[in-house]
């Protein structure tokens, strides 16, 4: 007899991708790779061992996130290993009918290593519900550059977002102690806030950089914070560099981010998947 389950949550996508890089006798090499479900991880051919840090590109083949989805990206870097990680496209969080989509980004950077985690923007559609936790664990002397960019709908397509649930916890720890924690949370009420809250902005970005000498970049990066349509400012509390940006739309923000990254990454080009 065929039984049709009722009140059972719709089968949602699962994805888990992890890559591990470490120095061996012949330079940096791939030491671990796991790809399951909708999560893929692309290492451009010949990237490892070539000049410059390799670019790891994560991809969610399900085409977007909705309630009940579980997605996990992870990078492990061995001592002195340097890499850049990004995402193939913007991540889209669609209307959720039941519970949040869960995303876990877990980066582990061993002593003296460095990771640029530069995901493309996250677009939140009306009624979306996303619970994301990004954790970067730094060993002694390790550093990182972390970017997060969130856009509410696509203004150019006339989309407005009135209902949203976002819990987006970003945390950087050094030798186990938190050095940067930014728990961005958006609710329906938060979307209506004035000048101290969102103030009508529909695109926001944060950059955090931890490492030796990052405070020296404060004045150079301040000098490029003048993109029309973007309000941005920088600060360097203790051993970190922090940037905040807000805009009415994603495009000017993307241009501002690109200009900031050019300064912070000392002219190193943006990841190839970033189409500017």
């Amino acid at each position, binding site marked *: 007899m065929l039984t049709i389950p009722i009140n059972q949550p719709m089968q949602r996508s699962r994805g888990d991708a992890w890559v591990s890089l470490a120095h061996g006798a012949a330079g940096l090499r791939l030491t671990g790779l796991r790809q399951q479900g909708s999560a893929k991880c692309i290492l451009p051919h010949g990237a490892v061992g070539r000049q410059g840090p390799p670019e790891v590109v994560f991809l969610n083949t399900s085409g977007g996130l909705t309630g009940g989805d579980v997605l996990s990206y992870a990078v492990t870097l061995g001592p002195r290993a340097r890499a850049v990680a990004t995402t193939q496209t913007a991540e889209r969080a669609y209307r959720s009918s039941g519970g949040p989509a869960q995303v876990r980004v877990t980066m582990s950077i061993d002593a003296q290593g460095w990771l640029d985690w530069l995901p493309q923007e996250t677009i939140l559609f009306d009624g979306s519900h996303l619970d994301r936790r990004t954790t970067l664990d730094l060993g002694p002397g390790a550093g990182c550059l972390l970017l997060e960019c969130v856009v509410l709908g696509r203004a150019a397509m006339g989309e407005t977002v009135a209902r949203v649930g976002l819990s987006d916890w970003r945390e950087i720890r050094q030798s186990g102690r938190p050095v940067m924690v930014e*728990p961005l949370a958006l609710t329906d009420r938060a979307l209506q806030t004035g*000048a*101290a*809250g969102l103030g009508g902005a529909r695109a926001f970005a944060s950059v955090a950089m931890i490492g030796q000498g990052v405070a020296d970049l404060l004045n150079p990066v301040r000098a490029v914070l003048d993109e029309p349509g973007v309000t*941005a*400012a920088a600060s360097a509390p203790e051993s970190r560099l922090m940037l*905040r940006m*807000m805009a009415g739309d994603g495009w000017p923000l993307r241009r501002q981010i690109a200009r900031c990254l050019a300064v912070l990454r000392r002219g190193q080009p943006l990841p190839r998947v970033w189409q500017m």
Partner: protein
Amino acid sequence: MSHDLLTLVQWLSPAFPTGGFAYSHGLESAISAGQVTDAAALRQWLTEVLHFGAGRQDAILLVQALGPEADHSALDDLARALQPSSERLSETLEQGTAFARTVAALTGRALPARCLPVAVGEAATPLSLPPAQVAALYLHAFASNLTSVAMRFMPLGQEAGQGVLAALHPVIDALATEATRLTLDDLGSSALGADLSALAHETLDVRIFRT
């Protein structure tokens, strides 16, 4: 009235030497930028900072610091890591340091330098007061200080300023009660404008306040 309540009121009063009057939490740059121009705008700004920003965040940290099992050193690490700018870090750390030093001198207890909500929570642990009451008085002191900043820096009379503060009482009361039911996992902010304003304060040409 209980002795413990009077003790807390003293600790959180403007006369207590934490130097709170020098910190505007980004309000000075918001006023300079024309984002806060009258009593209504001030009320909205403060409501949002309380509900979506440092108010709620500090209330959660404070309530956790009051707990019998609290790891104050770990809470202080978290409180520092949560600050988005060097001035905001100074604001909470310098006030917390002065607060802890003064309470230590009054009570003979060893109270190390901590961010303000953790310092207040740690100091208030022996007081027999409900956590919601401690949180409410803390938030009231925070809102009262920012109201005073506004009255000194923008055209806003004493009565209008006190009216704004009085209108914040329901927000403060609700937040303090809510904070007693929350954990560190419930930390979350969307006061992006207030944060940006705090960062922008560092490059203001003319500054009266330290943040």
